[in-house]
């Protein structure tokens, strides 16, 4: 199981800020996003343009080829705009 967190317009388009999914085993962030995009039209819309997205695995920024495994916390969000 993976805990997924969404922020800003990614959260709004998906319609939730948090969900969990079962994954068979380790996979890349890129593969995970592909899997998530199939869950609903909202997911598909939110995750369509990867260039506009960033991700973190267990509270660290991660590239799309990073590996995720059951038990991880994965967050997907737009580029940050704090400060």
């Amino acid at each position: 199981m993976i805990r997924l967190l969404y922020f800003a317009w990614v959260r709004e388009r998906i319609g939730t800020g948090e969900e969990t999914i079962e994954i068979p085993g380790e996979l890349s962030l890129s593969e995970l996003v592909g899997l998530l995009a199939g869950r609903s039209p909202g997911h598909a819309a939110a995750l369509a343009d990867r260039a506009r997205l960033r991700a973190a695995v267990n509270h660290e920024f991660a590239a799309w080829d990073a590996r995720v495994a059951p038990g991880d916390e994965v967050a997907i969000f737009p580029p940050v705009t704090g400060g």
Partner: protein
Amino acid sequence: MFEVRVTAEPFDSAHEQARLAALGPDVGALVGFTGLVRDHPLLIEHYPGMAERAIRRVLDEVCTRRALLGAIVIHRFGQLAVGEPIVLVMTAARHRAHAFAAAWQLMDYLKTEAPFWKKAPTGWVEARAADERARAAWTAR
């Protein structure tokens, strides 16, 4: 004293400055940056588990390059009105160059590495390429 706080509450710059000034007789330079909500109200969303950790990491990185005696970083979240403070970065050093460079670098890093997002009445604020460039420029210095 190297502190990071992520909070919905307002902060008191004068109080934080007094704490840094009290660190000892070798504090000769205090630099404070305050970011204010400009033009229109903002809703600031953050990633609760990661925000403080990301700022702490930025602070650690800046401290490897600047001789700081102390630093305080406070970042707010929630609904903020025009003119309200969003962020405070305050640095204490013996000499001004370290205090200035550290505070400026901290802000440039925060802008691109701390998980906060701003929503204006017109929609989510887009990340600025200028912020990425400002961040990248520090690695060359």
